[in-house]
C-alpha cells in the first residue's frame, strides 16, 4: 500500500505541475456541453434535453479519463520511468493502483464540473437523492474509464499505438451504449456488444433516474456492474502490464 500511495502522490504532484493539461481536461468538457446546449436549442421543444445532456456529460468524463490515463501511462513506458519504477521495487499492481488513486482526483473534478454545468445550463432540477445517484454513477464510470485506460496502455508501446484504441472504445460507446439510440432498438449482436461497454451501465442508471418518477430501485445492479467492471480491469491490467520483457 505504501508504494501505491507513493505512485499516487507522484501522479498528483505531476498533475499539479501540468496546469495547462489540468485546465484543458476540465474546460474541454464544459465547452462541449455548451456547444451541445446551442445545438439542442435548435431542436423541437418537445425533445427531452436531459435525455441527451446528462449522458453526454458522462460520456465526456469517460472519454477524457480513458484517454489521459492511457497516454500518460504509455509515456511512462517510452520515457523509461516505468522500467525504473520496476527496478526500484514497485510492482505492477502498485503502479495500476497508484494511477487509479492519482487520476480519481481529476476524474472527480471533471464529474462535478460537467454535471454542474449541465444542471445549470439546461435548468434541470432534481431531488438531492437523484443528484447523489448521478454523481456516484458518473464517478464510478470515471473509475472504470481510468482502469480501461490503464488496461489499453498495456498493449501499446508508444503514444501512436494508443490512437487505434480510441475509436475502438469510443465509437461503440457512442452508438451502442444508449447515448444516442435506445439499446432495445439495436440488432441483437449490437446490443450484446454494448454490454461490454461501461457507458452502457452508466447510461441505464442515468436514463432511469432523470425520468419523472424514476428511481434507482430497478437499475441499481448497474452500479455493481460498473464497480465489478473496474475490479476486473484492475486485475487484468495488473497481469498485462509487463515488468519483464
Amino acid at each position, binding site marked *: 500500500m505504501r508504494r501505491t500511495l*507513493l505512485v499516487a502522490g507522484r501522479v498528483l*504532484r*505531476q498533475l499539479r505541475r*501540468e496546469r495547462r493539461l489540468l485546465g484543458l481536461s476540465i474546460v474541454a468538457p464544459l465547452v462541449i456541453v455548451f456547444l451541445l446546449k446551442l445545438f439542442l436549442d435548435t431542436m423541437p421543444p418537445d425533445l427531452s434535453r436531459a435525455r441527451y445532456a446528462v449522458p453526454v456529460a458522462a460520456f465526456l468524463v469517460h472519454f477524457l479519463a480513458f484517454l489521459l490515463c492511457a497516454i500518460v501511462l504509455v509515456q511512462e513506458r517510452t520515457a523509461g520511468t516505468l*522500467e*525504473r519504477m520496476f*527496478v526500484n*521495487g514497485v510492482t505492477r499492481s502498485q503502479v495500476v493502483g497508484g494511477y487509479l488513486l492519482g487520476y480519481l482526483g481529476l476524474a472527480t473534478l471533471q464529474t462535478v464540473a460537467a454535471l454542474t454545468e449541465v444542471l445549470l445550463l439546461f435548468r434541470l432540477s432534481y431531488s438531492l437523492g437523484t443528484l447523489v445517484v448521478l454523481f456516484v454513477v458518473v464517478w464510478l464510470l470515471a473509475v472504470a474509464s481510468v482502469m480501461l485506460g490503464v488496461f489499453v496502455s498495456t498493449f501499446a508501446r508508444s503514444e501512436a499505438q494508443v490512437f487505434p484504441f480510441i475509436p475502438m472504445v469510443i465509437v461503440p460507446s457512442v452508438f451502442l451504449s444508449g447515448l444516442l439510440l435506445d439499446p432495445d432498438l439495436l440488432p441483437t449482436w449490437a446490443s450484446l456488444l454494448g454490454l461490454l461497454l461501461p457507458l452502457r451501465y452508466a447510461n441505464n442508471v442515468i436514463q432511469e433516474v432523470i425520468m419523472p418518477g424514476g428511481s434507482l430501485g430497478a437499475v441499481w445492479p448497474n452500479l455493481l456492474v460498473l464497480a465489478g467492471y473496474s475490479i476486473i480491469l484492475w486485475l487484468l491490467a495488473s497481469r498485462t502490464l509487463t515488468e*519483464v*520483457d
Partner: protein
Amino acid sequence: MSVVGAVEVAGLTKRYGRIEALRGVDLAVAHGRVYGLLGPNGAGKSTLIRALVGSLRPTSGSVRVLGMEPTAHRAELRERIGYMPQGPALYDNLSAHDNVKFFGGAHHMPDLAERVREVLDFTELADRAGDLVYTYSGGMKRRVSLACALVHRPDVLFLDEPTAAVDPALRARFWLAFRDLAARGATLFISTHLMDEAMLCDEVAVLRQGRVIAADTPVRLLQRGRTRLIVRTGDNELEYTIGGRPEDLAAALQAYGLAPDVRSVEVRGDTLESVVLDLVAAEDDQ
C-alpha cells in the same frame, strides 16, 4: 567454499524473434570492482544490463547478481541494486529533488530526506534541486539519473553509458565519483563505447554482436596490441612494429644504447582530453 561474486553470467542468450541480441555471454565480476563493458552501438550492452537488473528474461543461460537470479528474487534484489538507464528516465515536470525522493521512496529508508540531500550534494545538484528537470541541461539530467540510482545505497550499480553526451569536465567528475563509490565497497558495472574510459576500470569485457570477444584488465588488453616505433637518425628513418608490452619497448631501444639492465619502458603521455581539461581549469583559476 565458493565465494559468490557480485555478478555471474554463464551462457546468456537473448533472442528477439530471429535476432539474437546476446549469444552466449560469460563473465564474472568480483565485489568492489569497477567493471567496464565495452562495445560499439548495437553490440548488446544495454540488453545485457537489462538482463542483469531483471528487466529482461533471458532466452537461455544463467544470470546471478549477488548470488540471486534477478527475475526470480525481484523483491530482495531490488533493495541491493541500482540502475541508471541509457536514457534520462526521469519525470521532466518534477524537480530533481522530487525525482530522487520518489525513486528512493520505493525502498525502505528511514533516513530518506537526509539521504536525498546527500546524493544531491554528491552529484553537485543541491543548488538547483528544486528546479523542474525539463529546465536542466543534458549533463544535469545524467547527474539526476545517477542520484536516483544511488539514493538507496545499492551494493551493485549498473550504469548504462552514464557519460554518453556528457562534456569532458563532467565526465572526469563522474569517473571520480565512480572510483569513490568503489572505494566505499560498491561494485560498478558500467557500459561505454568510449575506449579511453576502459583504462579507468579494474576489468573490462569487450562485447561485439552479442558475444564477449575479450575480457581482461585494461592494461593487459592494451598489451595485446602493437606499437609502431619510428626512429630517425640523421636523414634516415626506420620504422619497427613491436609488441605492446613495456618490455618490448625496452628491448627495441637497447639497440640504440639503452642500458641492458632497463627491463621495461612505458610512455604515458597526456590525452587530448586531459590537456583540454587542464586548459579549462587554468582559465577558471585566472
